[in-house]
């Protein structure tokens, strides 16, 4: 059988149809599609290109592709494409600022392919899309990212500065209170000693009023001694290096209670100190904690008819909680925040004596162990002081 001759008319018709199909495709596309000659001058642009750039088809033809680029970007683009073709890359994608006939800038993302024949470039074809919105959004994001970063850095810097200032102020305050407390001791010793000499010197000559006056001086000297000792203790609590050991808290609480309780307290107060979880901490500081909490409990309980103190401790996850619960004067929960401040007192000296420093020593000692303190109470119904020590 003879091979059938192709029908040229039919082939031509098919080709025309195909071309028509692609032309419609290209002309209706939403993207910019164009072709240039080997020099980069336009030989075809689709209608979208005309609309976006604002040139007529006549104005477009013969223009160089670089003229669509923002002037600041032309050199870069030239180098970019030169490199692409030098390296024989078949396709490239570039995002760049373009400029339309009115000089308005917008962003394009462009795919370019060289058109080759016999190893020679005879033209380029490109598809480009307006990406202005995306670029603006990205830039805004980048700007806000940068702003956030800058703000964060500023904030951190400020926090660091403030912290350093605060630490400095704290140190100064500490050194100050330490040296003041020391300097206060010297005249105090003198007052104390000479009051005693005066009493000895006057001896029998001292009448009741004289004795009363001397005793007021003595009591107040004693108060001042207590204040100064407490202040020094507070400053020591801050400065002391922690010597961490394993501590039997029941034993420590018992021992402390027996040391500080007056004969009256030992006789009148019913105290329970059961077994408690062992603590890891600085023995001296924790002893001070028990001492201050227990002496508070004793002080506020002795004045009442019901006099019980319950001490206890329990293990929780990663921490041990200890407490001292008394049946004493208690306090109003709205004052709970004032309890642990330096010199802050909820009672007058006539009601209960005190320096107003004891609980702040407790708080600092526990904070130095990375623990917490808090209190619960009700007026007339006693108070419970808790402290927590981390385990491990």
């Amino acid at each position: 059988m003879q091979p059938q001759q192709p029908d040229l008319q039919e082939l031509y018709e098919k080709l025309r149809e195909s071309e028509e199909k692609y032309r419609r495709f290209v002309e209706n596309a939403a993207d910019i599609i164009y072709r240039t000659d080997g020099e980069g001058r336009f030989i075809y642009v689709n209608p979208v290109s005309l609309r976006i750039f604002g040139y007529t088809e006549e104005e477009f033809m013969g223009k160089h592709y670089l003229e669509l680029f923002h002037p600041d970007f032309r050199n870069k683009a030239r180098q970019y494409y030169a490199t692409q073709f030098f390296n024989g890359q078949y396709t490239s994608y570039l995002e760049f600022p373009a400029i339309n006939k009115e000089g308005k800038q917008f962003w394009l993302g462009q795919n370019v392919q060289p058109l080759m024949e016999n190893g020679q470039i005879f033209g380029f074809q490109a598809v480009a899309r307006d990406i202005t919105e995306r670029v603006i959004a990205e830039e805004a994001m980048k700007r806000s990212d940068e702003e956030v970063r800058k703000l964060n850095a500023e904030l951190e810097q400020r926090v660091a500065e403030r912290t350093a200032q605060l630490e400095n102020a704290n140190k100064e305050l500490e050194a100050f209170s330490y040296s003041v407390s020391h300097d206060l001791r010297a005249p105090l010793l003198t007052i104390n000693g000479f009051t005693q000499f005066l009493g000895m010197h006057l001896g029998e000559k001292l009448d009741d009023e004289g004795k009363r006056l001397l005793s007021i001086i003595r009591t107040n000297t004693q108060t001042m001694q207590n204040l100064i000792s407490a202040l020094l203790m507070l400053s020591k609590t801050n400065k002391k290096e922690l010597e961490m050991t394993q501590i039997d808290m029941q034993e420590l609480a018992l021992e402390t209670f027996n040391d500080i309780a007056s004969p009256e307290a030992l006789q009148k107060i019913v105290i329970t100190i059961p077994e408690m979880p062992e603590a890891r901490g600085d023995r001296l500081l924790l002893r001070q904690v028990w001492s201050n909490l227990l002496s508070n409990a004793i002080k506020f309980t002795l004045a009442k008819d019901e006099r019980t103190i319950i001490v206890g401790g329990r293990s929780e996850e990663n921490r041990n909680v200890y407490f001292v619960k008394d049946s004493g004067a208690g306090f109003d929960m709205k004052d709970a925040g004032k309890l642990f401040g330096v010199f802050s007192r909820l009672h007058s000296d006539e009601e209960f004596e005190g320096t107003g420093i004891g609980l702040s020593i407790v708080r600092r000692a526990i904070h130095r162990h990375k623990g917490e303190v808090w209190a619960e109470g009700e007026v007339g119904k006693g108070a419970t002081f808790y402290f927590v020590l981390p385990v491990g």
Partner: protein
Amino acid sequence: MSDQPVNILLVEDNPHHAELAMRALKMHNLAEHFVWVKTGEDAIDFIFCRGEFASRTIGHAPKVVLLDLKLPKKSGLDVLREIRSDERTKDIPVVMLTTSREQKDIVEGHNLGLNGYVVKPDDFEKFAEAIRSVGYYWLVLNQQPKKK
């Protein structure tokens, strides 16, 4: 000043504290041959028999020096250093008397061969007791090594 044996040399710039110490010693009959100087310079003059104290003999050293740490100009530690660096005086017992509990001072004092360190309590009764113990130990109990 005559060349008498001296039991206690007190170096104390606070006259009231000096009086307290003296009265405390007196209460316990330990104030015999007691000398008080106010400055570190005077203490050195006394110990090395210079200036005002030129008529003394260096061999008649005090049985104990009670030395305040915080003195104007020449400090207690300076005085101690000078006493310890002279062959003739280096064995004189020196007890530091101070309100300071600064570890640094205590450590330095001991490195310089301090014989004792008494922190002045702010309670007079405790102070009197501390002074009494120091006086009693160095005047009554202590046996100094015999000089060659």
